[in-house]
């Protein structure tokens, strides 16, 4: 029997069919739903029910986005009740309906402004979704594409962030909303959000699995448990771990952030690499956590690696404009943080990264080197995430509301900048000598000898911390020791690297040769013939 009016291959969104004229549809909810959308929903339901993950992935990544662009650019998707009618689903609590509602609210957050009711309803939908996974006595049968699982967790954390930010704008909340917030104080509670993410990681024995992978063992049912053997649980668990990493950073809890990922290896061929957005997010937040606990070498190592990866894979994201925007933003944030980190811990950076920093932050770096420390504030603000406070008080004049979460983090960071103030100057003087008496250095720096001694010790102390837990690092930093009243300095020079340059030229030559050969074979195609 022909279930649907149109074949899957012939669906409009696959042919990039243009949307109809503006006054064809009435307001969403009471009007008609366009036929292509009806077909899309019916096929979507069909594939999800039958676990045909390849088609589900295709419809999710490509179809949903295209239809949103064409038909729902500034409107909501059809109401869930309407969709339930269309696909003839009797149970409003079925997994398809839960998943549809997730997409429905996600669309509202992305393209429109969610009302307080939307926020509450979306939260209950998430609770239903996670209860479906967590309360199951045996693993659920459904399978979902990794990208979708990542997006669910990412969006979940994002909506929590959005809720906290909404609450903190106390001036913009009307009385009715204030009452609603007071009545439903369990909604979007920070401990509930944390609890869900933690439970998702525990359901599949994620830490045990990661430890086994780290030691090169194969993950068996004994390690992973019954639930951990199914990809939907393990992947959701892993993405929840990255979600926790992000949430801990937003709350200023860097110790927890780094301990939760202690068994995760940041390699290209890892669980993380299955979804590029996940890899970028994880690297950004891990690097940021290291940055805030002053282990700059680790930050530099992570960011260099991921920036290189982003350069190489940029072309694959071209068809998704909103993803490219996100990625570019993270790129710039990491560059800002890298610029700061390399003033505290000079390490050799890849040429491509160096060029990017010069382009985007060149003038700021120059100002730092001239002793202008106010630039650090700007760079920090561009690079840092949108911090959250776990508790947002109702009264906007309360002392906790005014010194907001971002201000708090900045204060601690600024204290560190203040502590490091004299070090770049010290470093630049020391670089000029192989040995220098303390008295002479004191004269140059216009400080007392005692102050110089303090500075020298602080330099050593900070350097040890900045090294972090990285292994061999190619450091550009100087080293020294003090013998009686004389400072003995050693320098690490890096000989010019010709390898990369050489390879670039070889590739250029090869390409030029190709061009010449093709021109020789097709003289007409090569261009206008000379007279």
């Amino acid at each position: 029997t022909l279930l649907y009016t149109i074949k899957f291959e012939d669906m409009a969104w696959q042919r990039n069919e243009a949307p109809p004229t503006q006054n064809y549809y009435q307001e969403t909810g009471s009007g008609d739903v366009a036929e292509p959308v009806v077909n899309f929903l019916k096929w979507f339901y069909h594939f999800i029910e039958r676990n045909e993950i390849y088609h589900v992935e295709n419809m999710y990544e490509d179809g949903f986005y295209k239809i949103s662009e064409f038909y729902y650019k500034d409107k909501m998707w059809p109401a869930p009740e309407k969709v339930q009618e269309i696909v003839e689903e009797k149970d409003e609590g079925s997994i398809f309906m839960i998943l549809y509602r997730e997409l429905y609210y996600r669309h509202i957050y992305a393209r429109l402004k969610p009302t307080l009711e939307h926020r509450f309803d979306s939260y209950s939908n998430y609770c239903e979704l996670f209860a479906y996974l967590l309360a199951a006595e045996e693993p659920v049968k459904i399978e979902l594409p990794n990208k979708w699982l990542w997006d669910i967790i990412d969006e979940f954390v994002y909506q929590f962030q959005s809720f906290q930010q909404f609450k903190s704008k106390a001036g913009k909340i009307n009385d009715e909303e204030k009452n609603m917030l007071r009545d439903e104080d369990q909604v979007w509670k920070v401990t509930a959000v944390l609890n869900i993410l933690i439970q998702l990681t525990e359901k599949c024995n994620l830490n045990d699995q990661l430890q086994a992978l780290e030691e090169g063992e194969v993950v068996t049912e004994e390690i992973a448990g019954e639930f951990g053997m199914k990809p939907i649980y393990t992947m959701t668990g892993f993405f929840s771990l990255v979600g926790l990493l992000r949430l801990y950073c937003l709350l200023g809890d860097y110790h927890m952030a780094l301990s939760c990922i202690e068994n995760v290896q940041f390699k290209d061929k890892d669980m993380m690499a299955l979804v590029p957005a996940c890899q970028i997010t994880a690297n950004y937040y891990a690097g940021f956590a290291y940055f805030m606990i002053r282990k700059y070498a680790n930050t530099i190592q992570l960011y260099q690696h991921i920036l290189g990866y982003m350069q190489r894979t940029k072309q694959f994201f071209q068809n998704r404009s909103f993803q490219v925007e996100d990625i570019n933003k993270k790129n710039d944030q990491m560059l800002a943080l890298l610029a700061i980190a390399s003033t505290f811990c000079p390490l050799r950076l890849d040429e491509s990264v160096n060029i990017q920093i010069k382009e985007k932050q060149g003038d700021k770096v120059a100002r730092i080197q001239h002793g202008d420390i106010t630039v650090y504030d700007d760079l920090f603000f561009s690079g840092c995430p949108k911090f959250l406070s776990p508790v947002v008080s109702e009264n906007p004049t309360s002392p906790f509301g005014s010194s907001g979460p971002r201000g708090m983090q900045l204060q601690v960071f600024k204290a560190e900048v203040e502590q490091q103030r004299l070090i770049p100057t010290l470093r630049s003087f020391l670089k000029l000598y192989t040995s220098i008496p303390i008295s002479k250095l004191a004269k140059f720096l216009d400080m007392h000898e005692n102050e110089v001694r303090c500075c020298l010790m602080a330099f050593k102390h900070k350097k040890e911390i900045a090294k972090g837990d990285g292994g061999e690092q190619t450091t550009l930093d100087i080293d020294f020791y003090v013998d009686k009243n004389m400072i003995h300095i050693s320098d690490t020079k890096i000989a010019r690297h010709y390898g990369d340059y050489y390879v670039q030229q070889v590739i250029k030559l090869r390409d030029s040769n190709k061009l010449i050969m093709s021109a020789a074979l097709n003289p007409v195609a090569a261009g206008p013939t000379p007279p």
Partner: protein
Amino acid sequence: LSRERMAKTDPKDRMHTLLQGIEGYNPQHLPELEKHLAWQIKENEYDFEANLVMLRLYQFNPELFNGDAVRLILLKAIGNLPFTDLTLCKYLIQTDRLMEEPLCHIIELGSLLETCQFHKFWETYKENQDIVGNISDWTSSVRSFIAYVIDTTYQRISKRLLMSLLDITSDDELKSVLETRHWKLEKKTTDEEWIFITNHEASVKSTKIKEKVTFDAMAKN
């Protein structure tokens, strides 16, 4: 977790088991944690993870904030320098709180240590000794840190300077420090006495890093 296992293990293990997962955010554990903190002070033990849980609970439940507990936690963190415990703590405490007495003095002490202004540190400490109270062995933890910094910076240091940095006044105290750290008092040749710390000359040398070009690396490109 079975009862027998819990009874056998030491207080730190017990506490960590109690605070697993989301329990680390359960404010009902605060009384137990405060007792655990008192135990650390008395027995010269240190449980950074548990102390962080307390700070988190105060962050999530500001009405339960206990200034005295925070004072002790920060002091213990300073005692664990050069590890970055103090910085991690600061991120979890509201700036306004940190600017009030007595916490602001403690933050100042921490700052002086981190910028290695040791003379000023001892001055400030002596002015505020009552704030520090009687945490057993706190000053020896601080001296440990100062000695560590001296270790990494100096090859030879004058006896006079060393004693002032560590705030030790008697030769007996100096002798025990030298023994613990394996430092040597050199034979007195001039009127300045020198102490040999460690041979940095051997390890701190200028190097030139040459590029290694291999076929494999080139082939990848």
